[in-house]
Every structure is written in structure tokens, then in C-alpha cells.
């Protein structure tokens, strides 16, 4: 139970941080952490299938897509600023 509560706290913290931190890159990294924590939560809920899928798709692939978008954003900003 204590583990569950800690996990829940970490989940909520990472979610809030991902939504409010001013740096986008940081936000995405936090979101990936959030996804991995979700995978843990699914494992705790006796849902190993979802845990696998969440880690691979929710955290992994979504994370990759978002990181790529942030990279694209930074590239654009560099192009714009000079």
C-alpha cells in the first residue's frame, strides 16, 4: 500500500510538472517518466498487458514523437532567431 501511495504521488507530481514546467523539453521528459510510472501502476493493478503496451507505446513511442516535435520546434526557433 505504501508503495502504491508513493507511486500515486509520483504520478501526480510528474503530471503536474509536465503540464506546468516552462521548458518544453523538460515537460516531455517528465511526460515519458509519467508514462513509465503508469506502466508500474498497471503492473500493480494486475494488468501486465497494459503495462507492456504503456511502456512501449504510451511512454516509448509517444515520447519519441513528442521529442521529435520538440527538436523540430527548436530547429525552427534557431532558424527564426538570427
Amino acid at each position, binding site marked *: 500500500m505504501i508503495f502504491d501511495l508513493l507511486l500515486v504521488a509520483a504520478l501526480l507530481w510528474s503530471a503536474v510538472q509536465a503540464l506546468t514546467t516552462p521548458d518544453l523539453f523538460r515537460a516531455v521528459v517528465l511526460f515519458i517518466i509519467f508514462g513509465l510510472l503508469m506502466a508500474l501502476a498497471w503492473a500493480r493493478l494486475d494488468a*501486465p*498487458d497494459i*503495462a*507492456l503496451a504503456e511502456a*512501449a507505446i504510451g511512454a*516509448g*513511442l509517444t515520447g519519441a514523437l513528442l521529442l*521529435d516535435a520538440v527538436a523540430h520546434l527548436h530547429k525552427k526557433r534557431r532558424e527564426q532567431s538570427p
Partner: protein
Amino acid sequence: MRTLLNVTVLFLASAFGLALGWLILDLPVAAVRLPEQVTAQLEMSGVVHPVTAVLLNFRGYDTLLEIAVLLLALLGILALPRHVSDHQHRPSSANPVLQTLTRVLAPLMLLVAGYVLWAGAHRPGGAFQAGAVLAGAGVLLHLAGLLPAWATPGRTLRAGLAVGLLVFIAVAVALMAQGTLLQYPLSWAGALILMIEASLTLSLGLILAGLYLVLTDSGVQK
């Protein structure tokens, strides 16, 4: 104005959240017991793992539509007006260490995907997870500079993207010849589901990788 909106939304959202939390603490016992029915019918489904049984047999129709959703998302992205880059986009900083590592990892991931797919019949795993692993391999290959981004997929690739859905539909239609949509005969159920899952794994891997490989190359027509 903006602040007022912020405050209102935050207030309403928290009120809603509290109400929601309070209400779910006090729920009656559910009238319908689906887990028991799943267990009771599991041996009729052709697989041993209950989640796979629900996913591909009891509620296989959901999954059929869901594959369509995934394919549709890629289709929607491909349908956007984009410029087609002349040079095939590869990350320039292809690190030789990463490349070597990837050359080793990619076949390994292929193997893992096969195992996860096969395992799905009786323990956690299945087409989705296997497809995700395949897609991961694709993304990795791209990052290592070994796989170009997809500007416009050719017909073979499109066929590969669609094969999962098409096989699924074909099985559904074939089964209808002797009765009902997606009603597997008991003796064939396991084999048919494996066949569907195999083709789904291929398509899911391609689509999920495609989401990345198409997006990473996207730009607007100037």
C-alpha cells in the same frame, strides 16, 4: 479575461474532480459479472490468456475498428499537404557506435517481437506489444541513420500497412460464410487468431513506426 477563464476552469474542474472522487468511493456491487463469464467461456475462445481472448475474440470487433483507427491516423497524416523533400532525410549525426549497436539490436528486437506475439496466446503479450517492439526497432534504425524517413510510402509499403486490417476483415468475411461475423469455429479459433495477430503485428509495427517516420520528415508545401 484570461485569468477569469483560468480561475473558472480550475474551480469547475476541481469541483468536478471532488464530486467524481467522492462518488466512486461509494459504488454498489456491479450487477453484471463479466470476469466470470470470460472465465467460463475462455476455453471456447481458442486462447488461454483472458485479455487476448477478450481482445481478439469476445470483443474482436472493437479491435477490428481500432486497427482502422490507427491506420486512419497515419492516413490522415499522409493526406496532409506536405512538401516532399528531395534528399532523403537522415539524421546527420549518425554515431558509429549507435549504428553498430543498432545493427545488433534490430534483429534481436525482431526476435523479441516474434516471441511476444506467440506468447500472447497464453500469457501477457500479443500483437500490440509485438508491433510496438517492431516499431521501436524501426525508430532505432532511423535514429542510427540506417533507415530513411518516409516521404511518400510506395504501394508495397501501403500494402504492408494495410495487410493487418485486410487479413482481419478477410477472416471476418470468410467466417460469415458459415454463420456470423467473427464467429470462430472452436477447432480453428487458435490458428485463425494467431494468423490475424501475425499480420496485425506486421501492420502495427509498420504503422507505429510510420507515425514517427512520416512525421519526422513532415513539412509544409511552400
